[in-house]
């Protein structure tokens, strides 16, 4: 049957800001004010929203800053940039997502102050070298959390490291257990002729590598590489007309997480808790059905937390789960990142998501290296975390099945 948005979604709330010159509010405030107006028009509230769409007028990186600013809890987010037509495209994308059952209440906002941003603060409008999310629009000052967080020297290393510290504190996770993740990746990378690092390493090697940000050593960190990758996703009738193995998407989930107002901060769990649950529910399978897992390995702690969050083991038991080669293909129960992952193989442009899908598809096709190919690999997962695990991040989960 032909899939269409026709009749599957309705525009229920609208609100246009009454002012044409806004020198007295922040841009985030104006976004939130517009959001509130449209939700009230619809008779809904912020807690009903499960999808958020914004373009590059939104201060911060993608949807992260504003979603966290407004306290949204999302199943779906889309920050497609399409200039002035973005919001029409967003309405269409929202209809697609609703038609596909991905969300029920989608919020789309636009706000900017090209005139008002020049006034108001006067001498207080200080531009500094604070860390700012890349691609921010409207200047650093309009990223709502920038002044409070950008000054503290947060990097990927030390924000992920804080999560590791807290995980160790709450669950007794050890550096040795984290090291096993790198060891497993290195066992796989030795067979990948393109891998950045091909040497098999030991737990001791990891622990003896220089400390970067406590408790993460250099070998707890992924490689930096140039490179890239691409995916082609097609309709079933196209797939069946081609001469390649049939690998179909059966489940997908996404979520964002931030400090959410600073109450009940929990650095030991990622947005993968929600994206994973959505994907497994849609696929109608459980983690024990999975034969191979591509798990984003920006750092060893990322893998450990994601495995827990996806349900491969219980929260707090990730350390035990990854130890003793349990992630090594042919040795352990859950073969992961058989290309060597970001820890040893590739992390093109510091973005490892695409290589996670690529290796999962190779496994599902039976086209991984013979030394690491998982037999009868019919169900695979690719999961990623983007951003800063210790501040604002996104998670995506994709489950695929070989027909």
């Amino acid at each position, binding site marked *: 049957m032909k899939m269409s948005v026709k009749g599957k979604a309705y525009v229920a709330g609208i609100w246009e800001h009454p002012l044409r010159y806004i020198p007295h509010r922040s841009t985030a405030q104006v976004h939130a004010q517009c959001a509130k107006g449209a939700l009230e028009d619809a008779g809904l509230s912020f807690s009903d929203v499960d999808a958020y769409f914004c373009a590059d007028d939104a201060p911060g990186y993608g949807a992260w800053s504003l979603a966290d600013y407004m306290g949204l809890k999302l199943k779906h987010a889309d920050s497609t940039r399409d200039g002035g037509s973005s919001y029409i495209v967003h309405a269409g994308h929202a209809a697609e997502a609703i038609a596909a059952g991905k969300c029920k209440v989608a919020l789309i906002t636009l706000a900017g102050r090209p005139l008002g941003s020049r006034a*108001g603060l006067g001498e207080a409008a200080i531009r500094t070298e*604070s860390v700012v999310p890349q691609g921010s629009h409207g200047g650093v000052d309009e990223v*709502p959390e920038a*002044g409070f967080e950008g*000054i503290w020297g947060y990097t990927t290393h030390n924000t992920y490291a804080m999560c590791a510290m*807290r995980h160790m504190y709450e669950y007794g996770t050890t550096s040795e257990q984290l090291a096993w993740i790198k060891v497993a990746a290195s066992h796989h990378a030795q067979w990948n002729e393109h891998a950045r690092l091909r040497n098999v390493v030991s737990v001791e090697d990891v622990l003896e590598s220089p400390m970067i*940000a406590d408790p993460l050593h250099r070998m707890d960190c992924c490689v930096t590489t140039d490179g890239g990758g691409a995916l082609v996703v097609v309709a079933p009738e196209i797939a069946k007309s081609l001469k390649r193995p049939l690998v179909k998407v059966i489940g997908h989930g996404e979520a964002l997480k931030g*400090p959410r107002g600073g109450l009940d901060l929990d650095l030991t769990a990622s947005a993968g808790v929600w994206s994973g649950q959505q994907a497994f529910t849609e696929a109608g399978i459980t983690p024990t059905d999975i034969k191979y897992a591509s798990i984003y390995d920006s750092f060893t702690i990322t893998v450990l937390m994601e495995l827990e969050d996806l349900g491969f083991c219980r929260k707090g038991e990730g350390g035990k789960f990854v130890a003793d080669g349990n992630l090594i293909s042919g040795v352990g129960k859950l073969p992961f990142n058989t290309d060597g992952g970001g820890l040893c193989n590739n992390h093109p442009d510091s973005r490892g998501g695409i290589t996670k899908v690529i290796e999962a598809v190779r496994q599902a096709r039976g086209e991984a290296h013979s030394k690491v190919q998982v037999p009868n690999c019919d169900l695979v997962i690719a999961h990623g975390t983007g951003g800063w695990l*210790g*501040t604002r991040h996104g998670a995506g989960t994709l489950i695929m099945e070989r027909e």
Partner: protein
Amino acid sequence: MTDLESRPTKRSIPVPNQNLESKPFWDAAKDGRFLIKRCSACDKPHWYPRTMCPFCASTDTEWVESKGEGVIYAFSVMRRGTAPYAIGYVTLDEGVSLLTNFIDYDLDALEIGQRVRLKWSPTGQSNPPVFTFAPV
């Protein structure tokens, strides 16, 4: 590669960005007052400060002064770079957790759960100070 021996011992903290929403916080900081936001509708405090409560979406939020005391929730000492420094979250006694840097501490003696107190760090000239924390 950085020459570890010749590195400065202290990271210099940049001047914080301000916008119309955050200006009252930084103006109070110049007077040595540390403000957080509390929602008059649902009574919950939040951090970082916003005009709209992130928990109930009320715009009826007020600035309240915090004692600036709490415990370390998580931290990491950055060992590479121009100067080592400790980043971390502090959970204030008022209940909210905030990102900060620790000062006046032994690099190897920080602990999760340790009590810390606000200690303003200057950022130069007429700029506002920033809310660093030090062990009690």
